[in-house]
């Protein structure tokens, strides 16, 4: 058997500096590039398989822009994307594997950060009874959303809360790209690595980013995530005006598919309906012109006979968006929910999570929107009414002091942390918020609910008294109080089960 050899080599970057990498005989490769690691394994150097891609001036120009002018992980003051502050650049640095340099010699290439370690399987990732070594493999979402899930140890699988967190991060990453006028063009399970343990994700393959109307896409996408209109028009010539190419709207289709998969562990369009006895043609139609959502309320012809779980379990915010994506927007791209809509709906849903008291519940959490039906849909466990409470939030109505409009609702559970966005209007837990410190938490003692001030200035009780740090407020049913004496403080209404 021939021993694999490796040797250290150097590349020269366009900024004149040099970078060492470890050249091996059989490097990992994707569809377009092969990859070498730097000696410290913190970066990867990628060279193109097809040398025409390397010499293309248009490609180089696009990559130079991706590196700098379109780069949200670098502050605008340092040449990065417009609107990027140091704070937001730092935040998005963790959400993408964004290229950091271009290679000039010995041939054109790209330098990217290596995937953070949490997105690679470690020791004991598979079940003990399964003889599979997953160590070092990338955590593509198919491991967690398909039948491959059965090979994983329970500690790897995460729970609903973590998958919601992953979905929030992904929608935020896509939102940022779209806000800059960019489209990923190949969002898929292969290009979004997820870690259900930490509830995080990272978007990779950034070098295939598309600037619609400036730098057209070079890939059409990955099967299962290509928008129906792209598949339908695939047979047309590239320059045919009727040809639909990857763009922001097709990203939104892929985003919706990914979120559906993360939460429901199945593909939204793969159902029992057969459109053609010819497999390829059936595939073409099922994902293209005849694509039909398996939970379409108006047409159940593609609904699996044993459908476990549904979009209704996630509350009205997400249910509405899934229908918008896969019914209204399936064949009507402009009707698809934007990444920003997904982000907001996911955050609102996150605030309605309830831990399931059943230690054996497969998901550990469920969305408790209807306080009259506190039943876990994953294990059937019913909570007692006394175990259920909500805080209905209201924000001041502009120009009408003393009047309020709905601002959301949060489900309470023991030790639930509360943050600034739960107390002050017009604050949202995104990349721009500086204050991420826990401000208060919920404590349930002897059947009673308390709001305990950890670090919130100006917190008020239902009687209007100051609640100093370290003190708590007894939350009585139907009590109404302004959460703080700060401007734009939210009004809180206690609702008990």
């Amino acid at each position: 058997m021939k021993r694999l050899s490796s040797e250290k080599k150097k590349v020269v970057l366009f900024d004149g500096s040099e970078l060492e990498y470890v050249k091996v005989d059989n490097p990992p490769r994707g569809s377009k590039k092969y990859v070498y690691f730097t000696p410290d394994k913190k970066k990867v150097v990628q060279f193109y398989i097809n040398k025409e891609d390397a010499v293309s001036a248009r490609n180089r120009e696009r990559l130079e822009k991706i590196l700098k002018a379109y780069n949200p992980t670098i502050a605008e003051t340092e040449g990065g994307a417009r609107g990027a502050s140091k704070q937001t650049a730092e935040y998005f640095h963790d959400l993408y594997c964004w290229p950091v340099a271009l290679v000039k010699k010995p041939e054109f290439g790209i330098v990217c950060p290596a995937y953070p370690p949490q997105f690679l399987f470690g020791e004991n990732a598979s079940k003990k009874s399964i003889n599979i070594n997953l160590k070092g493999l990338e955590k593509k979402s198919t491991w967690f959303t398909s039948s491959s899930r059965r090979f994983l140890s329970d500690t790897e699988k995460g729970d609903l809360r973590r998958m919601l967190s992953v979905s929030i991060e992904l929608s935020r990453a896509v939102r940022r790209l779209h806000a800059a006028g960019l489209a990923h063009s190949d969002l898929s399970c292969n290009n979004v690595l997820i870690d259900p343990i930490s509830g995080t994700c990272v978007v990779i393959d950034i070098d295939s980013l598309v600037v619609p109307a400036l730098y057209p896409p070079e890939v059409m996408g990955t099967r299962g995530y290509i928008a129906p209109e792209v598949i339908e028009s695939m047979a047309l010539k590239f320059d045919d005006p009727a040809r639909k190419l990857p763009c922001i709207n097709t990203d939104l289709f892929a985003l919706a598919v990914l979120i559906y998969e993360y939460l429901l562990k199945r593909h939204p369009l793969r159902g029992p309906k057969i459109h053609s006895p010819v497999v390829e043609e059936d595939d073409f139609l099922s994902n293209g012109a005849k694509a039909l959502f398996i939970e379409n309320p108006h047409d159940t012809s593609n609904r699996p006979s044993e459908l476990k779980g549904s979009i209704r379990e996630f509350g009205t915010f997400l249910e509405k968006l899934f229908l918008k994506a896969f019914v209204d927007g399936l064949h009507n791209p402009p009707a698809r929910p934007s990444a920003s809509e997904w982000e907001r709906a996911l955050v609102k849903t996150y605030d309605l999570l309830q831990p399931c008291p059943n230690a054996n519940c497969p998901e550990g959490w469920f969305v408790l929107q209807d306080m009259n039906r506190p039943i876990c849909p994953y294990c059937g466990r019913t909570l007692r009414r006394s175990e259920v409470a909500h805080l209905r939030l209201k924000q001041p109505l502009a120009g009408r002091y003393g009047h309020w409009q709905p601002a959301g609702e949060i489900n309470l559970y023991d030790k639930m942390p509360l943050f600034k966005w739960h107390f002050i209007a017009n604050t949202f837990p995104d990349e721009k918020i500086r204050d991420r410190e826990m401000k208060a938490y919920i404590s349930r003692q002897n059947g009673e609910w308390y709001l305990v001030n950890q670090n919130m200035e100006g917190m008020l009780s239902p009687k209007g008294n100051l609640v100093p740090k370290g003190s708590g407020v007894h939350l009585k049913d139907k009590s109404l109080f302004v959460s703080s004496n700060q401007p734009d403080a939210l009004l809180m209404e206690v609702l008990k089960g």
Partner: protein
Amino acid sequence: MSAIQKYFASGARQIDIKPGEYEGPLTIGHSCTVDGHGATLWSKVPPALVVKASNVKIKNLRVESTTQARNFVAIDVLGKNVFFEDVEVYGNIRGQGFGSWTIPRVIELGEFAANEYNEFSARLEVGESCRLINSVHGLKIDAQNFLSGDFELRMRVDSMKDGAILYGSFLLETFDKVSRRIYVSGRARQGAPIRRLPPVPSTVDLLPQAKKSSACCGQRLPVPNADTFLVVFKAKSIPLGVNVDPYVFCLGVDNKVRSNTDLVSFENFAHETFGVYLDARKDYAVVVCPRKLPSDIQAVVVCFAICDVANRSDNNFSKVTAPRVEVWTDDGLYREYGLGSASGKLAVALDIHKSKGRWYLRAPVGELPGDLGKLCELYGLETM
């Protein structure tokens, strides 16, 4: 030593407290000016603030105790010449010149009928004269200014949709710029009862009961050692379509106003110093606080004028049955006198003037000049 007390350890004359919350109690033991910059001083056991020194000024601070006790003292003033500016307090201030307050922290309106206006009342014990600052949309409160004493606060909430919540606060601010906040909370609901109040009782039933004494028109009396006067126009009956509006002239050494703002009326309801202001209750009333007035104001003339919507020349005081003036102080009714039968549209009800450093009060005898315009000219006001 608490964190905030350390600010004062240096004995500095000017002390700036960083915004934030501080647990007291805090004791001010030396003459200084304290600027809280919006900070909150609180304590579990009252008082939260003790001012032992004299010549202290405290501003931009919120003071409260988190105790559940009633009528507690939040600030104890032991020194002299202690002034407050833009201080919000929850609780009483104990010290000379400060009265006792019993006010609710929250006025719970409960559920009230949607799509209807609703009325509510709340009892307040107000320790010092103050004005009400309310910006709650759709909440109307019948009085803007208060003398010290017990009051029934009458509120009206405009029509609100079913399910709408009203939650806001108003302030009672004394002339020393010490304010107290009261929250109002309620919800409109379809099917809830419509809340209405009985008609307003007459002023004399609301003011503190005390001995009455009469005076003759023209009598000159030294002003008693009272802080504030309430001058009220009363009558047995006033015809429909006729209003009686108060006009108060604050006059300088030349017996003329210094500027147009020295005329207090419905267009300028309070003198800039709050030494004179109108009470917005139905009974026509003016509050005069001579010590608040600037030193160059030598006289205050209180008049009541007929405001006739139809502008009929025969609508004058002769149509008003038994017009009289009552002068009240904190101790009760000080003087009252009739205005006699009059045929003009203007009645000078009272003048307070300074002579040799002392204020005197005079009830004028039948002085009813032709009209308000002439009186304005007499006192140096520009008229249109």
